[in-house]
């Protein structure tokens, strides 16, 4: 089934985006990314360790020429810091497609939507293609779309919580009202959560902790790949209407008497 995933002017084979944080080491990260089939991974921008000249680099394990790097603004709590990080990220390798996240506080890592909207406006003006981590708020998502975001990434639940998607109605209505891709970012805890996101009609899913913190991350990476595909195919196939009463699968005609 040919079903390319388009974000702005970019096209991807996989609808699963994988985060590269929290793994034991870069070797495990690379194996998990491979098993997941993802062709886009999120990455963070941090200082080079100038004291350890031989410290391994993510780029030595995941080739940015083969897998698209999606630089994020993890750990930024205001618009100014997020802009600084993304301008650096773009200069590093010409990456125009970025993931903006402006956080509200350390306990919930919930997005600060006022700062997020402000920052999106500036990034669009600076010709970035911005994918935006946001609350599961249909109004905020529409505002981001109107500002020129290339994708909205509403949270299923708190980052790293594994609590899945408790508010499916919001995700569904966000998707119904969006002209740009909707990607569930944050909260996915197991493969079925990813399927649910896709069955709600989402265009993609971003998963990090659920893979990295599974007991067998590489196996979970493959499970996520299959779950995203299954959920997508299930959605595309046109899911049956639910009924409150039973409906027999076998005809009553020609029953023996």
């Amino acid at each position: 089934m040919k079903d390319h995933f388009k974000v702005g002017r970019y096209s991807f084979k996989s609808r699963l985006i994988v985060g590269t944080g929290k793994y034991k080491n870069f070797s495990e990260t690379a194996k998990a990314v491979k098993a997941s089939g993802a062709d886009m991974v999120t990455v963070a921008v941090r200082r080079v360790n100038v004291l350890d000249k031989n410290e391994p680099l993510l780029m030595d394990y995941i080739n940015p020429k083969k897998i698209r790097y999606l630089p994020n603004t993890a750990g930024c709590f205001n618009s100014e810091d997020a802009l600084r990080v993304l301008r650096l990220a773009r200069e590093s390798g010409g990456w125009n497609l970025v993931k903006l996240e402006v956080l509200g506080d350390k306990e919930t890592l919930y997005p600060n939507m006022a700062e997020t909207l402000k920052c999106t406006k500036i990034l669009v003006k600076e010709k970035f293609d911005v994918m935006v981590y946001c609350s599961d708020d249909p109004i905020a998502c529409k505002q981001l779309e109107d500002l020129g975001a290339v994708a909205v990434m509403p949270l299923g639940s708190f980052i790293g919580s594994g609590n899945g998607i408790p508010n499916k109605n919001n995700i569904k209505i966000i998707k119904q009202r969006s002209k740009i891709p909707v990607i569930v970012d944050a909260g996915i805890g197991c493969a079925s959560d990813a399927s649910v996101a896709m069955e709600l009609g989402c265009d993609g899913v971003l998963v990090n902790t659920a893979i990295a913190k599974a007991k067998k991350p590489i196996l979970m990476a493959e499970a996520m790949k299959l779950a995203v595909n299954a959920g997508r195919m299930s959605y595309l196939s046109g899911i049956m209407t639910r009924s409150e009463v039973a409906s027999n699968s076998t005809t009553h005609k020609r029953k023996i008497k």
Partner: protein
Amino acid sequence: MQIQLNGKKFKINSKDSIVNLLKKINIKSSKVAIEVNKAVVPKEKYKSFKFKNNDKVEVVTFIGGG
């Protein structure tokens, strides 16, 4: 002369360019981005860029993140 490199004091020759700095810390320019006093330095200026005393320099790369 000294600069603040990633928050730490770092001795450097006044004639050193960014290319020389990257050699000293053993990292390829393709793997980093650089900011001097909060302004991003474009890669094409790495050869010609000259530091001033006490410049605040950030050399960043990509790490794992979600």
